[in-house]
């Protein structure tokens, strides 16, 4: 999928995104970084067709699966029903093969199809979201902060799961936790004020200079066994 000079404007005409041109190849994992308000979610939504693009082109021949930043948590639906939401968008409802597919997706995510999604833990609910995308069987997964609000182990587990089930699909994720982000992604896009200000492989992007420009002066990169680990440091002098 690719975009050419995509611009998104607010109803008052203020530009909130772009112009942005990106190309995501099949099988590629692209991770989007940037401070709050940098336009990451707007870019995801533009790619998924969820916001009106003011100008430019979004080209994608294949189906897209979007998991929102804070997906709604329905109560009183089974995990199987949750996994089927969207796949059964036709008037006829879901087919037998879709139900079987949803069952396999839940199994891959180690979830009980009969459990009420209202009773899942935060981490399990993220897995249910991944099972829903998997049932949809799109060519591109777009996940807006799939690890938000999870403990460090659950964060890694969720992304490990995503990596293991994605097959040859392209993945686009927004991530705020840089230590996790550094471990998942073939290519990183760094955004600021609605535009891409840097992009490249991990070692090209995870530098103190780029991260300080994107997030602020507290950013630093330390070296652990030859791997760059981005961190934010507190001020050394109080006040």
């Amino acid at each position: 999928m690719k975009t050419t000079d995509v611009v998104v404007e607010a109803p008052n005409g203020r530009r909130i995104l772009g112009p942005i041109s990106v190309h995501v190849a099949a099988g590629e994992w692209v991770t989007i970084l940037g401070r709050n308000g940098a336009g990451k979610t707007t870019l995801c939504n533009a790619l998924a067709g969820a916001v009106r693009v003011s100008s430019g082109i979004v080209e994608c021949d294949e189906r897209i699966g979007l998991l929102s930043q804070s997906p709604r948590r329905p109560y009183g639906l089974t995990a199987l029903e949750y996994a089927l939401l969207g796949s059964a968008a036709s008037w006829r409802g879901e087919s037998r093969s879709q139900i079987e597919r949803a069952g396999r997706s839940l199994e891959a995510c180690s979830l009980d199809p009969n459990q009420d999604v209202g009773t899942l833990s935060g981490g399990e609910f993220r897995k249910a979201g991944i099972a829903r995308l998997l049932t949809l069987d799109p060519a591109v997964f777009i996940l807006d902060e799939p690890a938000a609000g999870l403990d460090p182990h659950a964060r890694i587990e969720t992304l490990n799961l995503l990596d293991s089930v994605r097959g040859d699909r392209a993945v686009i994720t927004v991530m705020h936790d840089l230590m996790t982000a550094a471990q998942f992604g073939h290519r990183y896009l760094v955004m600021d004020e609605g535009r891409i200000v840097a992009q490249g492989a991990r070692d090209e992007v995870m530098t103190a200079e780029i991260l300080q420009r994107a997030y602020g002066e507290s950013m630093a990169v330390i070296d652990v066994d030859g791997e760059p680990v981005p961190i934010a440091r507190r001020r050394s002098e109080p006040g």
Partner: protein
Amino acid sequence: MRAALPPFRLNRRHGVLWAGAVATTVVVAIGLGAADITFLDGLDAAEWSIVSQWRAPRIVLGLVAGASLAVAGAGYQAVFRNPLADPYLLGAAAGAGLGATIIFVLAPDATPWAVPGFAFAGAILAVAIAAVVGQRRGTLGLILAGIAISAFISALQTFLLVTNSPRIAEVYSWLIGRLSTAGWVEPLTVLVYVVPAVGLLVAMRRRLDLFHLDDAELHSLGIDPDRTRLLVLGAATLATAAVVAAVGLIAFVGLIIPHASRRLVGGSYGRIVPISAAMGAIFLVAADTFARTAFAPAELPVGVVTALAGAPAFIYLLNKT
């Protein structure tokens, strides 16, 4: 792992059970009333005319009104993603109230069809204005526009009433809701509107489940949530307006019945919609049977009974949720 239940569907036992409950309610309601009718020894001519021209149309109107308000309420709750939404949320009640008041006050000698006609038009018009004004700002904009328009219309209605106080009692008794009929005309007229409108909502019940996802996720599936929302609200409002025009503003059915259904069968509208229809029909017919028999030959307005029974039930549900 256990085998999964069929998704988004009612199991057959539930369906049979609720169909039986509706049938039982109808039989009991036909048997109860001011005149003592026993079916065991057959019906004479007088009894037959009481049943066919008096009780049966009233019960049919109750079934249709109860089911329609409950299904319309389920539709409103689904597309607003809020279990506290009801079919009067966008101004249908206020608009119908103003329409009826205009006739009671300004043209009291108009044909008997003027009151329901104006109530119907008022309800549709109020919601249409709310939709046009509020639509651009999403669901919250719609709700706020509905509240503002309801307040404006209610103020107009109050103004008409205080300047024409002799009519207050008549208007008030209409507003509180009652299922009085004169033969089959009312139930059949309501059916003309309700069959396509409620039929569409029932057919769309699986689409309502999509609103468990957020708007961005729906767009990514190629579904326009705003258009779907307007279609559902349009059908639910048409059904509500037709019911309100015939029976007045019956409180709480559109709010508590979908809520009670949700507690019984879970969050899927594939199940909530049919259960709401059955439960709404039973609730309104039962409430009306109580209203016309408890203090016979005097009659309570059924709206009083639904609110008296509905409000405590609703508070109970709120505290259990």
